[in-house]
């Protein structure tokens, strides 16, 4: 018997205040019916006046590092961070050690997620064995495993062989899978350190040109069209990529695209500090790219936010730029950055935020009980956000093991005050509560 919760006066997707009654992991009543419902009698009441209620967030792109790099992150610490960020599901990328390229590894990650109990952990399977880009991993076995993998990606590395990419796109049609591509032409980015442009010219850092991303996306949307399969483009970072994806969608190609919070806010000007906290792949681009990405997200050309949460131990960042690891943490700052860049700029409303951070990501990953509307009979995956709150980012205070937040010291709007994961509050009063256990889901 789980505790029932009555959330009062929450603004659903930014609309008029309503009550929400949660019992047995499900939304059982809304509005005036909620308080009158029999299950409300022994419910814990949570006053949500001034708070926005969104469906629990779903991340299509998370690096949990376990197995293999437990010094960087574990499923436990990474999913704590996710819950604090308002997430109820994350897709764990495959570049662990060993690589998640077999049913055994994806089931292990899935089980670790269940044992932790903070969010649904949906493993992403590798496209190729060992991410080596040579032979297909056993995609079918991963799809049929207890982890029920639907998203496959060699993220971190591009599936650059066009024949292999074609076969992967074709093969996953058998189980409604999707290939999530890390679009990076390898030869054009050998030794690449940052966006190629005015800043790289001055800093003397090897350039990562936009064309290396755009040429792969152009090829891949044509392949997806040719074999009529689903392509997801990870972390789109350039204005040119947006144009190609827009073109592909107009032609009816089944492509979805993701953008990270950091690519919506930060630019390569930050690299002038040579501080590797700003080193990420794909790299921070120009302000023109930032504005194009925001516009594309608002227009639906880009479908979802993916954090690309990539924690690293401090020694991998406290070094020379060229020696440093690529990646930034993001789970605990994503919603605030989206509020800052998309909501407060007037580009999006909260219903749009729900679409790009919950509904659409769940659809891409084929998560049936995530990204659902907040409605009677739906699973109670709900996050409450205080949009009026302001907070100063402090990496040392985060639940993730990674201290590599590029937003360190910035004041951001919006604070997650509560996260309900299948009806269980994993976060209350802006702090971790308890994990959800026993449901066996």
């Amino acid at each position, binding site marked *: 018997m789980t505790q029932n919760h009555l959330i009062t006066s929450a603004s659903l997707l930014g609309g008029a205040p309503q009550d929400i009654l949660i019992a047995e992991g499900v939304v059982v009543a809304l509005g005036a019916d909620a308080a009158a419902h029999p299950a409300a009698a022994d419910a814990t009441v949570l006053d949500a006046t001034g708070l926005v209620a969104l469906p629990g967030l779903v991340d299509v792109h998370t690096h949990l590092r376990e197995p293999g790099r437990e010094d960087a992150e574990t499923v436990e610490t990474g999913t704590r961070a996710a819950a604090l960020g308002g997430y109820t599901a994350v897709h764990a990328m495959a570049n662990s050690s060993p690589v998640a390229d077999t049913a055994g590894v994806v089931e292990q990650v899935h089980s670790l997620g269940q044992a932790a109990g903070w969010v649904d952990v949906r493993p992403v399977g590798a496209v190729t064995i060992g991410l080596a880009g040579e032979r297909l991993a056993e995609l079918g076995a991963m799809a049929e495993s207890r982890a029920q993998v639907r998203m496959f990606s060699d993220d971190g590395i591009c599936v650059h062989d066009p024949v292999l990419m074609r076969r992967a796109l074709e093969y996953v049609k058998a189980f409604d899978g999707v290939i999530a591509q890390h679009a990076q032409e390898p030869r054009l980015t050998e030794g690449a350190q940052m966006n190629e442009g005015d800043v790289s010219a001055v800093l003397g850092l090897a350039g990562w040109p936009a064309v290396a991303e755009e040429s792969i996306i152009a090829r891949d949307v044509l392949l997806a069209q040719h074999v009529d399969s689903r392509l997801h483009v990870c972390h789109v970072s350039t204005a040119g990529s947006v144009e190609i994806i827009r073109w592909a969608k107009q032609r009816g190609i089944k492509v979805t695209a993701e953008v990270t919070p950091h690519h919506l806010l930060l630019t390569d000007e930050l690299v002038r500090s040579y501080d590797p906290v700003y080193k990420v792949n794909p790299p*921070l681009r120009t302000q023109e790219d930032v504005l194009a990405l925001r516009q594309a997200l608002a227009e639906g050309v880009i479908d979802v936010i993916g954090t690309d949460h990539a924690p690293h131990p401090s020694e991998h960042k406290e070094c020379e*730029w060229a020696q440093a690891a690529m990646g930034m943490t993001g789970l605990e700052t994503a919603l605030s950055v989206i509020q800052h860049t998309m909501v407060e700029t007037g580009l999006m409303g909260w219903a749009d935020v729900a679409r790009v951070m919950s509904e659409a990501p769940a659809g891409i990953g084929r998560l049936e009980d995530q990204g659902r509307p907040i409605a009677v009979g739906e699973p109670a995956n709900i996050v409450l956000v205080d949009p009026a709150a302001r907070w100063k980012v402090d990496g040392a205070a985060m639940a993730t093991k990674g201290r590599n937040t590029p937003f360190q010291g910035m004041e951001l709007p919006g604070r997650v005050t509560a996260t309900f994961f299948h009806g269980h509050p994993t976060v209350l009063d802006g702090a971790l509560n308890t994990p959800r256990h026993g449901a066996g889901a």
Partner: protein
Amino acid sequence: MKHLLSTQDLSRKDALDILDTAEEMAQVGQREVKKLPALRGRTVVNLFFEDSTRTRISFEAAAKRLSADVINFSAKGSSVSKGESLKDTAQTLAAIGADAVVIRHWASGAPQRLANTDWIDARILNAGDGTHEHPTQALLDAFTMRRHWAKLAGTGSAGTDLSGMRVAIAGDVLHSRVARSNVWLLRTLGATVTLVAPPTLLPVGVDAWPCEVSYDLDATLEQGVDAMMMLRVQKERMNASFFPSAREYSRRWGFDDARLEALDRHGLKDTIIMHPGPMNRGLEISSAAADSARSTILDQVSNGVSVRMAALYLLLTGGRDDETSTSHAATEGIPA
């Protein structure tokens, strides 16, 4: 000026300060006893992560002429080759009591990391970082040009700049820290700079630099050049398709005997020929050009000691201690 990391953020006043001080230091080099007590008791560490005998001995000579204690720390055969991090190395040098660290590193930005972190609280001098900057090389080049320019004007060098001087820099600009440092500094000092290179050896983004760009060395010479600086070109670049062959490079962008004669033909009797060394004779510069009366290549080497003495002296004896503009970097790059 707390550190000397780049010429891009070097003010005109600081640049002239270094050059004028270097003139005074040059006098010391003329004496029988080439030594000043200015840095007695100070420890200067030459921290070299990349082989560079010329730059290291130049800094070593400069520090010793100022009576500093010099420690040479080469990454090869040290704890660095056993995997010690830059942070640990820096903290070790701090614990030893280094007052200044002269750092040469293969990674762009490594000196700035030392300056910006709390790993070490010493003065940092960039002795060449990756393909970023080599500020003391540009300062010694400017010093050499300034002497030449002042002599032509019939004045002393002190206090003067390079106004009106036309400088061409030819070669592998893409991979050259010397080119970058020179572009910023020469511009600051009033010269006009033309970069001459094959398009493959110019960085994307060069059009935003305060200089002209040319693919045609002969046309640039014909337009008139007061100082012609040749950059070292590594033959290995042709294996990465930056140019088809060493011979083709040499024909199109090398300063060969024909171009040496062209200077006379164009009436450029006072044009000097410069090279930061080490040279590839026969590739980017012919022997006749390198050994001609126009060549300032050896002057550059001796001027290097004076300029490095000046930089060490100004950084370590205080001068002015105004913090350079790094604090705004925290917000730059975040669009509103």
